């Protein structure tokens, strides 16, 4: 087979007003318009969404799982970023 493969697109759906778009999977399509149509047919056959995003998969830059500690571990020791780190006298009540 000599034909070229269709590019891959990632699909994001906003399922209800007020919610963020969420990744649901991917589709193949030659351009953005077809990617939207395919995403509609493949991922929203039962009212799953109010809005669709499609993004070329090649445009997504992901962090490397091997760098997980490097990237995210330092925040674990920064407990002073959380409200529970601070004491509020009982007499003051809920804050």
């Amino acid at each position, binding site marked *: 087979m000599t*034909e070229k493969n269709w590019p891959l697109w990632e699909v994001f759906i906003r399922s209800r007003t007020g919610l963020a778009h969420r990744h649901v999977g991917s589709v193949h399509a030659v351009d953005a318009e077809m990617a939207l149509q395919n995403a509609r047919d493949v991922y929203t*056959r039962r009212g799953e969404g109010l809005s669709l995003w499609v993004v070329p998969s090649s445009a997504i830059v*992901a962090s490397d*799982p091997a760098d997980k500690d490097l990237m995210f571990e330092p925040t674990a020791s920064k407990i002073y970023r959380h409200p529970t780190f601070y004491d509020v006298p009982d007499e003051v009540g809920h804050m």
Partner: protein
Amino acid sequence: MYTQALNIKDMAAAAEDSAFDARFQSRVDAEEKIEPNDWMPDAYRRTLVRQIAQHAHSEIVGMLPEGNWITRAPSLKRKAALLAKVQDEGGHGAYLYAAAETLGVSREDLVEQLLDGKQKYSSIFNYPTLSWADIGIIGWLVDGAAIMNQIPLCRCSYGPYARAMIRICKEESFHQRQGYEIMVTLCRDGTPEQKAMAQDALNRWWWPVLMMFGPSDKDSQHTDKSMRWKIKRFTNDDLRQKFIDATVPQGQYLGLTFPDPAMKHNDRTGHWEHGEIDWSEFKRVVAGDGPCNRQRMKQRRDANENGAWVREAALAFAQKRRARAEAAARIAAE
């Protein structure tokens, strides 16, 4: 999907490292999900590609026996339901190919491997749909068996596969119920001829449906590893038993007789016991010699070849439009 390049880079460097292997297994044991860019043993990746691809092919080939009856559905309601079901199966194929692609293979490659006979699809789709009752049977039993098999896959250790299965399972329930409704209509509300048609369909499909769960545990090659990797949660025989126990009362409600004289309820275990499965038939059908293997493969091959010009034209058209838009933008900027 995602960034496949990462997978490839990691694989070569870490293949021999058994420390990676141990960490991987402990993550699986802790019920953590494995995601596309995570390190994984080569054999885990290969097993998943094989299984997900076979699953995807089955969804697509599975459209053929039912598609056979769309134009002859007995009412508009049945036609609409069957169309929606067959469309769902196409969607399931699409979700699953997408899940497989996260492992660094392309959908086109997988399709080619199917057409070359290097990958398989479920043996059940090599049986013909001879009467309308077969459409009822497929929904009730074939989709019913698929659900039994697929519900544990929603907890599979590989994230993209598990998520695709959750989506699929939500849709399968409609498939089984519409099939059973057809059976109720034929068996409880139908004429004696319609009921006989339903019984004939059950007689032909029952044993092939039991074979869908795969070889008996004592002959199954892949079970141990797949269980350890939490790709599989139950053995073939366990799932088959669950299916039979759930299905027999449904068949009794229809007033149908299962074509298994040895079938009996074991009051001690609470299970329905079944007679010997003819594994030589299973092997024959898997090897390519079932009633419809050649027809199904020919239909897939024709669809792929006849669609080639459409795929090429769509790409060329998109490229032309992109080039035009870029040229227009250049002129506007000048």
